[in-house]
C-alpha cells in the first residue's frame, strides 16, 4: 500500500511536487491523478481554439470600439505548432484588410493573439486591457486586432501595415503544469518583418497567481511611454518600472 514521506511539512516551501510518498517504486494514485489533471489543463490551454468573435464582442461591449479579426497563415493548430514561420505572417485576406484600414501614422497598435494558451487569453486579455487603457490616454491607437494562430512576430507585419510606431502583442504563453493561463506581452518599436527578439521588451507570467494584472498593466504603460519617448525597444530599453512603481523613483539600493 501507500507509504507517506515524513517530510510533508516541507512541501509548503516550494511549489515543486515533493513528499509525494510512494506505492512500491511508483507514485500514489492521488499524486498520479493530480499530475494528469494539471497536464490535461495545460494541453487544453494549447489546443482549445480561442473564440475570436467572442473576444471581439467582449472588447466592443467594454470599450465601445470595434475590433478587427485576422488570421495567420497557419491554417490550424497542428500546422501552427510545427510551422512557427507561418504563425508570424498574416494570411492574404488579413493583410489586404489591414492595408485598407491604415491611415496616417499612429502611436500604438494592440494585437491580442491566442499564442500557446487560449485559456490565458480568454481569461485575462480583456481584463488586462481594462487596466492598461486608462493609462494610455492621449495616444493615437489603431483598432484592436484579434489574431488567430498568431505568434509574437505576427505583430511586426500588423504594426507595419497599420503604420504604428509601436506594437503591443498580448498572447498566451507556453503553459507549465502549474501555470496553464499565463499571458506574455511583447513590445516592438518600429515594427516590421524580420525584427529580432533582442529588439523587443517582454513582460511575462501575467496571471493572477503570477504577475498580477494591475502590476503588469503599470509596467507595460511605463514601457510604452519609455519606448515612444526614446524611440526604441529591446536590450537598449531597460525596464526601470520597478523603482517607479514602488514609489522610489531614485537609485537607492533595495534593502536586503
Amino acid at each position, binding site marked *: 500500500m501507500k507509504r507517506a*514521506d515524513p517530510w510533508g511539512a516541507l512541501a509548503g516551501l*516550494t511549489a515543486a*511536487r515533493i513528499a509525494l510518498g*510512494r506505492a*512500491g*517504486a511508483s*507514485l500514489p494514485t492521488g499524486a498520479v491523478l493530480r499530475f494528469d489533471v494539471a497536464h490535461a489543463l495545460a494541453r487544453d490551454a*494549447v489546443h482549445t481554439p480561442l473564440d475570436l468573435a467572442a473576444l471581439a464582442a467582449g472588447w466592443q461591449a467594454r470599450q465601445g470600439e470595434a475590433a478587427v479579426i485576422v488570421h495567420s497563415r497557419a491554417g490550424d493548430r497542428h500546422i501552427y505548432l510545427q510551422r*512557427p514561420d507561418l504563425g508570424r505572417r498574416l494570411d492574404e485576406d488579413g493583410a489586404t484588410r489591414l492595408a485598407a484600414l491604415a491611415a496616417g501614422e499612429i502611436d500604438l497598435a494592440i494585437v491580442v493573439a491566442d499564442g500557446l494558451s487560449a485559456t490565458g487569453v480568454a481569461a485575462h486579455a480583456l481584463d488586462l486591457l481594462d487596466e492598461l487603457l486608462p493609462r494610455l490616454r492621449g495616444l493615437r491607437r489603431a483598432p484592436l486586432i484579434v489574431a488567430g494562430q498568431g505568434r509574437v512576430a505576427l505583430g511586426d507585419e500588423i504594426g507595419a501595415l497599420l503604420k504604428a510606431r509601436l506594437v503591443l502583442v498580448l498572447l498566451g504563453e*507556453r503553459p507549465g503544469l502549474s501555470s496553464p493561463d499565463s499571458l506574455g506581452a511583447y513590445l516592438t518599436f518600429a515594427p516590421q518583418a524580420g525584427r529580432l527578439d533582442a529588439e523587443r521588451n517582454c513582460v511575462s507570467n501575467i496571471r493572477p497567481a503570477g504577475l498580477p494584472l494591475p502590476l503588469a498593466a503599470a509596467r507595460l504603460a511605463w514601457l510604452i511611454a519609455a519606448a515612444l519617448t526614446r524611440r526604441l525597444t529591446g536590450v537598449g530599453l531597460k525596464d526601470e518600472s520597478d523603482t517607479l512603481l514602488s514609489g522610489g523613483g531614485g537609485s537607492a539600493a533595495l534593502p536586503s
Partner: protein
Amino acid sequence: MSLAARIGNVGYRFGSLREVLAKASPARSGDALAGIAAASATERMAARLVLADLPLRRLLDEPLIPYESDEVTRLIVDSHDAAAFAPVASLTVGEFREWLLDEATGEAELAALAPGLTPEMVAAVSKVMRNQDLIAVARKCRVVTAFRDTLGLPGRLAVRLQPNHPTDDARGIAAALLDGLMYGVGDAVIGINPASDSPAALAALWRMLDELIGRFAIPTQSCVLTHVSSQIQAIEAGLPVDLVFQSVAGTEAANAGFGINLALLQEAREAALSLKRGTVGDHVMYFETGQGSALSANAHHGVDQQTCEARAYAVARHFKPLLVNTVVGFIGPEYLYDGKQIIRAGLEDHFCGKLLGLPMGCDICYTNHAEADQDDMDNLLVLLGTAGVNFIMGVPGADDIMLNYQSTSFHDQLFARQTLGLRRAPEFEAWLQTMGLADEHGRLLPPRADHRLLQDLTRGLK
C-alpha cells in the same frame, strides 16, 4: 559515385551528401521546417538506399560544412584517428551497420574504434538503423567517467538531482534537494538551473551545494548551469565549482549563438581542473545538447538536425566530459513533434554519443505543446535503460517548476532500477547504505522521521 537510386520505375537523384543525409533521416518536424526533409516516404527510402551503399570514408573526405569556415569541422577532421578507423575504413554505411551489430564486435572493439569515427559517420549509420539496432549497439558501448564517484559502469544508472526553483529560493531548493536524496537520487550530479544570472545569487548556490556535499560527505559533484563565462569568473573568485556546464551545438555559428567557441571551453576546462576538486577522477565538464539547436540559431548550413546534433558530440568529446546530456524533448514540437519523434531522437542521440565515446545521458522530457505525455516518457525510459544510458534526470514529481517542462522523476528512477535491475554509482550506493537510506542491494529503506539528513536539513529550513 553518383547519389542516385531507383525504386520501381522512378529514379531519385540527390545533389549532395547533405541532401542524402537529410532525406534519409526518419521524419521529424524540424527537418520539414528547415525545408530539407524527404518529400515522400519513397524518397526517404531512396535516400537510405543511396546512403547504405555510400563508402564510410566519403563522409570523412567530403565535409558537410566547409573546413575553412567552421571550427567544428576543423576539430572533426584534425582530430580524426586514421589508425583507429582502419578496421572499418573499407566499409559502406550499410556494411558498417552489420559490423556494429556483429557478435564479434564488442566493448573493446567499439572503444578502440571511437577515435576513428566522425559525427557524420555515426549519424549516417543511425539513419539505416531501427530502434532495436540503436539499442543493441549502444548497449555494447561502455564509457566510464569519474569525479567524486564513478559513472557508466555496467549495470549502473546514475541520476542528476535537479532541485530547480523559479526564484532560486534557497529553502525551496533545499526542500527539493532533500526529497531527492531521500529517494536515493544525486549520483550523477546535483545540478541547479538558476533563474537569476546575478553573480551574488549564483555564488550562494555554489556555496550551498558545496556545504551540503561536504557536511554529509556525499560522493557526488555539484553544478550550477549558467553560462560558461560566469563559471570561469566564479572559479577566479574562489567559489567552490565542481563541474563546468555549457550547452553546445554542432556548428561554429550555432555555438556563437550560445556565446561560446572551442577556445572558451578549453579555458573553462583548464580553470576547473586547476581546482583539483575531484577525488576519484578528473572529468570536470558537463555538456547539454539537443536536436534542433542549430536550426533554431539559423546556423544549420542545410544539414539535418540529427547530424548537427552528432557534430555537437565532437565538440563535447574534445573536452573529456563527466556527463553529456541530450535534452531531447525540451525544444518543442516544431523540431520534434510527438512522442514517436522524441523517442526516436533520444535513441539516436544516445547511440551516436556512445559510439563516439561519450558518457551519454538523456533528459527524457517533453513540453506541454508537444504531442507527448508521461506514457511516452515511460517508454523512452525503459528503452534507454535497456540501451545502457549513463544517467537520467531526477525532478520532483517530474514537474520542473522553473523551466516549465516535464522530465523524469525520483519515482521514475526507482521504477527503472526495480524493473531493469540497474544500480547506482558504487560510491554513492555505499554512501546511501552508510546513511541508512538504502540496504546492501540498493533498495530504499522506509524513511524515518528522525533520520539525520532529514533532521539536519529541516532544522536549517526553519
